[in-house]
């Protein structure tokens, strides 16, 4: 109840600031109601396709980064020898801004979906690996011994201890990755495509149609909000134990 109230107050607060800025008569900032009206009218035509395309790209990228990054990170956290071998490679690759490889990926993999998804995936893959590895290295003391004392083997340690214990940090990593993924998504959609919310915003900008530009911003914000909400619901179901006591 409290969080819904907070949410409503935040939306009202942002709308007031936005409305105040629009009153300064800068043509680049339309009034909130104009942007919302444009957004709703565009929903009947192109907006839904652009939003669906962006949603598809971001979900696919997160899915692959999660499926590869989390198990790999957990393995690094639990197996010292594997960590010794790979940690240097990760340390070396992590600071490189992967976004600069977009032109290379476009040339190598063509102008389709693959290079865009791959770039987003690669960037958030590193978040996932590092967070999962650190979470696995900081398991509650004695938890592995508890499982071993009950006769647990390596797979039991992963199933009953490592994965559930690391889930809260993995969700935090997903949230942070989501923000990054949305920014990278916008960038990847500004090149060699005519679909996606990033393309829609840049197209509106070049036509100096600021109502549509802000409708696009509303669209990408709604995608972000929706994904955050879904993550929240998932976390509250998967990590129920965190919300008791």
């Amino acid at each position, binding site marked *: 109840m409290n969080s819904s109230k907070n949410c409503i107050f935040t939306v009202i607060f942002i709308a007031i600031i936005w409305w105040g800025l629009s009153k300064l008569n800068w043509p680049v900032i339309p009034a909130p109601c104009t942007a919302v009206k444009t957004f709703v009218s565009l929903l009947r035509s192109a907006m839904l396709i652009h939003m669906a395309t962006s949603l598809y790209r971001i979900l696919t990228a997160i899915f692959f980064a999660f499926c590869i990054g989390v198990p790999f990170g957990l393995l690094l956290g639990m197996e010292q020898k594997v960590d010794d071998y790979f940690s240097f490679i990760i340390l070396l690759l992590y600071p490189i801004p992967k976004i600069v490889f977009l032109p290379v990926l476009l040339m190598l993999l063509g102008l389709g979906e693959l290079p865009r998804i791959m770039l987003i995936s690669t960037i958030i893959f590193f978040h996932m690996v590092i967070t999962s590895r650190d979470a696995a290295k900081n398991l509650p003391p*004695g938890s592995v*011994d508890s499982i*071993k004392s*009950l006769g647990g083997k390596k797979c039991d340690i992963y199933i009953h201890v490592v994965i559930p214990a690391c889930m809260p940090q993995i969700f935090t990593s997903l949230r942070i990755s989501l923000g990054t993924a949305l920014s990278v998504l916008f960038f990847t959609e500004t090149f060699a495509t005519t679909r996606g919310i990033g393309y829609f915003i840049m197209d509106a900008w070049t036509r100096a149609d600021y109502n549509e530009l802000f409708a696009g911003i509303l669209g990408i914000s709604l995608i972000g909000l929706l994904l955050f909400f879904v993550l929240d619901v998932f976390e509250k179901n998967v990590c129920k*134990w965190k919300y*008791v006591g």
Partner: protein
Amino acid sequence: MVEIENLSVEYSAKNARVKALDNINLELEDRKIYTLVGPSGSGKTSLIYSIAGLLKPTKGRIFIKGKGIEEPTMETAVILQEFGLFPWKTVEQNIALGLAIRKVDPIKTKQIVNDILEKLSLKPFSRHYPAQLSGGQKQRVAIGRALAVSPSLLLMDEPFSSLDSLTRENMQREVISLWRQNPIAILMVTHSIEEAAFLGQKIIVLSKSPGRILDVITNGGWGLRQGAAYCNTVNLIRNMLMEHIR
């Protein structure tokens, strides 16, 4: 039940070798409660971990029912310090964990878990998470999880150290009552001489580091908190440790 022959345990710590246990020879009988006391750093936890198969001895061997111990066996169950419960599992799931790992039939598992919940008065909390339980309840869940796998030997590493004194006394009584219903061998580490004297039918006294056995006392005051026999045992252990430390 348990035979320990020339057991020594050494650790590597900061480029140095630390000897935790030195030449321990000990026999534990079936259906008896043993308590293990000694100064800090005397290797009490190392001894429990070695018997549980969680720690490889540097020297010597441990046999449980005649079989050499290389890794944790089905014969033992361990209750570690701070209960060792998993916060992400409910009371029911924590108790059933050992059975799930040992691939016991789910219907039988449910039956065993229900019996234990009943016996330990945990039925109303079966779907609670550990964070929703008091210290005493958490300890009962830890005992329940250990008993669920029907061990022949229950190892407890300072199980009551984080409980308040009243809950601690209740838990001590509960251990004796559970043991009377199901008399298995129990080896319990404790810092408290009074607890050792109340719970241990035999009390193993360890020396300061590296741990050696000073004595194994047959306790005339078992299950008592007062009276001459109890006081004699407490004084005997206290004097032995004081003299040794001096």
